């Protein structure tokens, strides 16, 4: 009776995950969808705690379980509530890593059980270790190893991605790293495969070697990839963790873990591919890291070309006040400077003066797709003021002033004109079609891809140097005094 009640709990859980994901992909229902999935998760968790039994035995160690749940909830809520909007992507990466680590630790404990079973000496049967493991056990071992390897890679990779996004870890690559990575991965998998069929009390230590190798692989896998590609990496690691969770589902024949894990694994993979498509690159291209490692050298070698001109605050203010149509292009600079509120203020001020203002959002502006949307939504910028790339590209022709706030690579015309450029082929916001372009940047330094932007040297472009927040505040004050 109780066990079948648990099955119903898991059914509800799986259903809410599917409905939740579905609702999450529509703006109107997204928030409810998140809540639906959370409720389903709660039911599945408490169902497991109170109803799960194995061979007629209920779960024990309640104090440990509730202690862990309590501690995790406190830390989780605090961390999630305190984090700044700009640091959201890092936070997602961090939580993703926790899930990966959880999956890996489950494997560690389960392996402990199995190796304890084999620790009983069977000395009189010579050569027992080659035959003693039945195939059913091999299946269990395979899922344990997969959970361990995928979980550990996801954990280590997410930590590196987290460090990269908040600037603590720099890109790092050594010659032959790709080959080294491949060899390391192959060695790890082969060792795991060997162990599945040849497990012996004398070689259980290899399990921990595999764990260490998977961690190292996770680190080396993410290290050479440029910071601009971190969204793709996080999305990929997200789907990895999903698969690791599904391994747990196999292990315990647990439907809710299986559906939840596989759903995320599949959806995450699709999301990763969608992100790559937005940048017009293949996934392998991102992972092998032509952006981060080798390409930056080629870009900087060219050096700055031509002259750029600066614009004074009052000129910029006048220019925007007397325009009919202004489009704002936000980028990572806006996020770093936390300038979203003053940006909204500028928008309202211009609207009052009869200027038509909208925002053009590049799919990969910022550090994560949708990063800019979230940021502007925080400042109460109305939904319908945000234009997606195709829509905006039609609008630029009739636009008087484009104001670029801390965006660089997503408006670089080299993506269309220079086949040698590492970002060649990436769809961009074609701001150069507007009459005037004002670029706010802190300095002339190249953007994340490490390449020069010829847009800044075009005659219709003028530069407004300074931190986005400070510059916008001054601009707002200037417009008010007009």
């Amino acid at each position, binding site marked *: 009776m109780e066990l079948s009640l648990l099955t119903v709990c898991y059914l509800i859980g799986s259903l809410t995950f599917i409905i939740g994901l579905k609702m999450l992909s529509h703006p109107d229902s997204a928030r409810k969808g998140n809540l639906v*999935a959370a409720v389903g998760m709660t039911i599945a968790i408490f169902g497991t705690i109170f109803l799960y039994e194995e061979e007629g035995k209920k*779960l024990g160690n309640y104090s440990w379980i509730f202690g862990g749940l309590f501690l995790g909830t406190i830390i989780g809520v605090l961390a999630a509530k305190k984090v700044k909007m700009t640091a959201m992507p890092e936070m997602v990466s961090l939580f993703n890593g926790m899930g990966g680590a959880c999956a890996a630790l489950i494997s560690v404990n389960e392996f402990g059980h199995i190796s304890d079973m084999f620790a009983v000496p069977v000395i009189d049967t010579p050569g027992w270790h080659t035959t003693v493991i039945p195939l059913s056990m091999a299946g269990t071992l395979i899922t344990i190893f997969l959970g361990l390897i995928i979980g550990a890679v996801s954990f280590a990779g997410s930590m590196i991605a987290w460090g990269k996004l908040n600037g603590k870890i720099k890109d790092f690559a050594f010659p032959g790293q790709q080959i080294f990575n491949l060899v390391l991965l192959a060695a790890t998998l082969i060792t795991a495969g060997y162990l599945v069929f040849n497990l012996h009390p004398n070689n259980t230590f290899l399990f921990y070697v595999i764990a260490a190798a998977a961690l190292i692989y996770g680190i080396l896998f993410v290290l050479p990839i440029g910071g601009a590609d971190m969204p793709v990496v996080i999305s990929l690691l997200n789907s990895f963790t999903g698969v690791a969770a599904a391994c747990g589902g196999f292990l315990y024949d647990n439907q809710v873990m299986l559906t939840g894990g596989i759903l995320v694994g599949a959806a995450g993979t699709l999301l990763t591919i*969608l992100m790559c498509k937005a940048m017009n690159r293949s996934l392998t291209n991102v992972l092998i890291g032509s952006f981060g490692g080798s390409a930056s050298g080629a870009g900087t070698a060219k050096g700055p070309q031509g002259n750029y001109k600066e614009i004074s605050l009052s000129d910029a203010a006048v220019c925007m006040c007397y325009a009919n149509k202004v489009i704002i292009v936000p980028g990572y600079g806006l996020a770093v400077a936390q300038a979203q509120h003053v940006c909204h203020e500028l928008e309202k001020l211009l609207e009052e003066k009869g200027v038509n203002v909208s925002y053009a959002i590049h799919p990969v502006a910022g550090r994560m797709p949708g990063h800019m949307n979230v940021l502007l939504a925080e400042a109460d910028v109305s939904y319908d003021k945000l234009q997606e790339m195709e829509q905006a590209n039609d609008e630029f022709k009739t636009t008087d002033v484009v104001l670029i706030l801390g965006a660089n690579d997503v408006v670089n015309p080299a993506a269309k004109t220079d086949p040698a450029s590492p970002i060649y082929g990436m769809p961009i916001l074609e701001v150069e079609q507007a009459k005037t372009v004002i670029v706010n940047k802190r300095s002339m330094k190249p953007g994340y891809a490490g390449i020069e932007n010829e847009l800044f040297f075009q005659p219709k472009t003028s530069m407004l140097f300074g931190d986005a927040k400070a510059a916008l505040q001054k601009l707002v004050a200037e417009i008010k005094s007009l």
Partner: protein
Amino acid sequence: METILNWIQSHIDIIYIVILSVFLGIEVIGRVPSVLHTPLMSGANAIHGVVIIGAIIVMGKVEPGNYVALIIGFLAVVLGTLNVVGGFVVTDRMLEMFKKKK
């Protein structure tokens, strides 16, 4: 060969679940607008926190005297909870800002 067929036979329901879930996962988010990419990723991140259930089962099966396993299990429960709770709260915070303005 026979063992493989047997294996498939005895796990057929799981295999069905996996195959259908893969297609469902792809189908369900197929038309997501790019506006929602970040919240969706974050929401999916919270959902794979379902791995916590495995952690709870592991924890609940450990012999009370086995402290190494208890501590590892405890860590797994804490990390899994972090993933679930943190994931859902962060997603909710992101979506909170998507209020429709009239």
